[in-house]
Structure formats: C-alpha cells, structure tokens
C-alpha cells in the first residue's frame, strides 16, 4: 500500500469560454516528495493545467485530487493552501508593500496572527535564504531575489505541492543555480513547468510532456530528453551542444 499521492489528475478536459479547447483528458499522478518537470511547446495547455490544480479554473470533465482532497468549491481554502503556485513574473506574485507582509499574506488569510505568524514568515524566508530582506519592498530586490521571495510566499503556507511556472526564466546563471539549491533543499513535492530542459534534467528525475492537451510522454527525464524523435514530434529542442547523456 503506497501513501496517498500529492497530486492525482484524472481525465481532465477543459475548454475556454470562447470555445477553444485547451485540455483533452489529462492523466497524471505525482507521488509525495517527487520532483517532476512538465514540458511542452507554447500553447500546449501547461498554464491551463496549472490553473486547474488549485481550482482557479474548473474542469469541464475529469477530476483533480490533491493529497486525497478533491479540488472543488467545498475545500477551496484548504486546496489553495496545499497547492502553492509560483507564477512566472514575481512582480505579479509579490503584491504587498514589503517582503514580510507578502510572505505573511497567505498564512494571515488563513487566520494566523502574532508571534506564530512571525515565526512562519521567518522560517519561509530562511528556507530561500532571504531572511535579512524581510522589511524591503519587493521592487528594490534583484530579479533572482524576487523569484526566491515568491517561492517563500507559497512555502509559508506549508504546501503539499509546489508548482513553479518557468522558475528559471530571466535568471542569470548564478541566480538560476541559487534557486536550484533552494528547490533541492525543500522537502516538498514539486511540479515544474519549464522550457529550460537542462534545468529539468538537473532538478527533476521524472518528466511529463504535455502536447496538444494530453500527456504525450511520462518517464525518466534523461530518457525523454534523449529520445530525439519524441522531442521533435512535440517541438522540444535541447540547447546547442547539450547532450543529456553526458551530464552526471
């Protein structure tokens, strides 16, 4: 008997109000503590899928279950706490005047106050190495720092699963590595949506390809990235000179 998976998606289909269908029956399961990359070309439906995971979008058909809890109106507050989504632009994610208030937002919305709240905020910021920036306004941080604070804002809710939308985009190599170190140090299930294939290989033992609204491949990242025919079919390309097999 295995433990309850962090995330279980069954037959998920969705069409936008304008009739454009983005998902055609997505099935995927993420075990506890797994780090999985979600790959796919632009327009494959990755963002649409992500917005289903915490109930922002409601499935046309199929189900999403987070740690055994079905995503639906009934458990919405709990689901939103369990699924921590880090959006691509930290300026969208960090909407409060100071880092501290921003990290406190989720737990405070859940009713936490006082010393308990301060402790949660301090711990979340320490986990991403941003403890000393608590009183700074987000605008005065570097892009890489803002991205790490964005991760802290969702870590503060002690999520079951961390969903990252293009975590490495716009980061310089040092910030990219610092974020990788942070992500590796976390004991939490991670679903990482990315075009950065070397980053996926570095951080995620397992990858999924979402293409034309369905999961087209699911397997060890190295095998997927080495399958040239599969990659070409889904408009995925490795950076020039990058050979997955050659990386330890």
């Amino acid at each position, binding site marked *: 008997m295995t433990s309850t998976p962090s995330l279980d998606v069954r037959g998920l289909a969705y069409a936008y109000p304008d009739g454009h269908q983005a998902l055609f029956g997505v099935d995927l399961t993420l075990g506890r503590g797994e780090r999985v990359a979600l790959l796919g070309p632009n327009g494959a439906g990755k963002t649409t899928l992500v917005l289903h995971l915490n109930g922002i979008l409601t499935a046309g058909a199929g189900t999403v279950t987070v740690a055994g809890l079905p995503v639906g109106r009934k458990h919405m507050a709990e689901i939103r706490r369990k699924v921590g989504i880090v959006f691509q632009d930290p300026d969208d994610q960090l909407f409060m*005047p100071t880092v501290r208030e921003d990290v406190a*937002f989720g737990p405070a*919305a859940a009713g936490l106050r006082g010393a308990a709240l301060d402790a949660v905020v301090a711990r979340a910021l320490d986990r991403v190495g941003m403890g000393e920036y608590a*009183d*700074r*306004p987000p*605008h005065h941080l570097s892009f890489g720092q803002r991205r790490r604070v964005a991760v802290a804002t969702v870590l503060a*809710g002690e999520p079951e699963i961390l969903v990252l939308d293009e975590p490495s985009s716009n980061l310089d190599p040092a910030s990219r590595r610092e974020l990788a170190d942070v992500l590796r140090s976390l004991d939490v299930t991670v679903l990482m949506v990315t075009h950065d294939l070397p980053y996926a290989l570095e951080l995620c033992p397992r990858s999924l390809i979402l293409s034309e609204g369905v999961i087209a491949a699911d397997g060890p990242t190295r095998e997927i990235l080495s399958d040239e025919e599969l990659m070409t079919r889904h408009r995925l390309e490795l950076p020039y000179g990058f050979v997955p097999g050659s990386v330890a």
Partner: protein
Amino acid sequence: MGAGHAHRLYRRGDSPVHRLPPHTKLAAVLGFVLVVVTTPREAVWAFALYAALLAGVAARARVPAGFVLRRLAIEIPFVAFAVLMPFVVPGESTTVLGVSLSVPGLWGAWNVLAKGTLGVAASVLLAATTELRDLVLGLQRLGLPSLLVQIASFMIRYGDVITDEMRRMSVARRSRGFEARGVRHWGVLAKSAGALFIRSYERGERVHLAMVSRGYTGTMPLLDERPATRAQWAGALALPLAALPLCLFALLG
C-alpha cells in the same frame, strides 16, 4: 517599517513624533485642521499661535524649517487664487500703495492663505514623520473601507513597477527614432498611454490570480496590530487639544 518607500516627503528620524502610531497622528492632524478652519478669520493672533504650535511640533520631530517651507510650495496654485480676491471681490474698498483693494477681498485672501498654509504645514509634518505605508495602515485602523485601503496599498506597491514600464516604453520609442515634439506627436503618446493602461490592467488580472491562489477572499488581513497606548494618544492629540481653547476663545471673544 522597512528601508524602502522613502517617499520624498518623508524625513527619516527617530523623534517622539516619528514614533507615534500613524492613526493617532492622522486623527491629530484632522482635529487640528478642523479647529483651524473653525476659527474666525479676524482672530489673527490665534493663527499666529497655531503656527507657533506647529513650529513646536516640527522642533520635537527635528524637522528643519527649510524642509517644511520648501514643501509648502504645493500650496502655490491656491495662493494665486487668494491673491486675486482683493481685486475681484466687490464691497468696501481701501487704498494700499495707491492700489484700490476690496476689504472683504483682503479678509477672504487672508482667510484662504492662513488656514490653507496651516493645514498644508500640518500635513507636511505628518508626511515628514510617517512612512507612506504606515499612513495607509493608519487609515485602515481608523476604519477607512478596506477597498480604499487596498487600492492605496497597490498604488504604493505598483507605482514604481508601472513607472518603470513607462520608462521602458519611452526608451523603446526613442530607440526607434521617435522624439515627442509638439502636437503632431500626441497621437503616439496617447497610444503609448493606452498600451500602458492595457498592460497594467492585464497585470492587475495576474496579480488577482496570484492573490486568489494564496487564499484572498476579498479582505486584506491586518498584520500590524499596533494599538496605541493612552500616552501615545495623549501625545498626538496634544496638538489639537492645545489649539481648541484658542479657537473657542476667538469664537467667544
């Protein structure tokens, strides 16, 4: 709170005035302004004493006179209006340096000038001793509707972001050889403003998404519960309470 958002009106410091909770200061300034506008304009001595009270506050806050005086410049458009009054208000007239001026107009100008200046000076002192963010929190504590508080907070947070975006758009325009010179180019500027509006609107939607994802249900949690002590209230309200007897005396006298 914090190193940032040091808006230009703020003057960093650690005076007793700086340390007062923001909502007590807001209440004090509002009270003071109400007392000032209630004072009859003929009681010139009372206005002199009000100014002295403000000078006392500035001294306690260690805000130099030059700092306050420079920021009083915001008042100039209103002063221009006041200066016109002696010339346009009908009524009994008097001659000053060979110029015929209306007496009610002079009193009207004095009224606008004295009360306006005192109000602006009090506000400048408030802004000089209170961070922008704390002012918003103070308003929240005083019961300003949550929606207005949220709008003000987002203005603080995204003002810089949107200004940056505007600057980038301007750089992009100029990089492609565009310089705004005169009316013929206003169309381009208007389109840029429209694009900026749409970008900001879309950002608003993304921000809302991020908020909802973190449990937002319509109200911002109030994080800084910093109730004021009796002594702090007394300290802040000392200003309007000192002004009040002067006003009453002028009214009755």
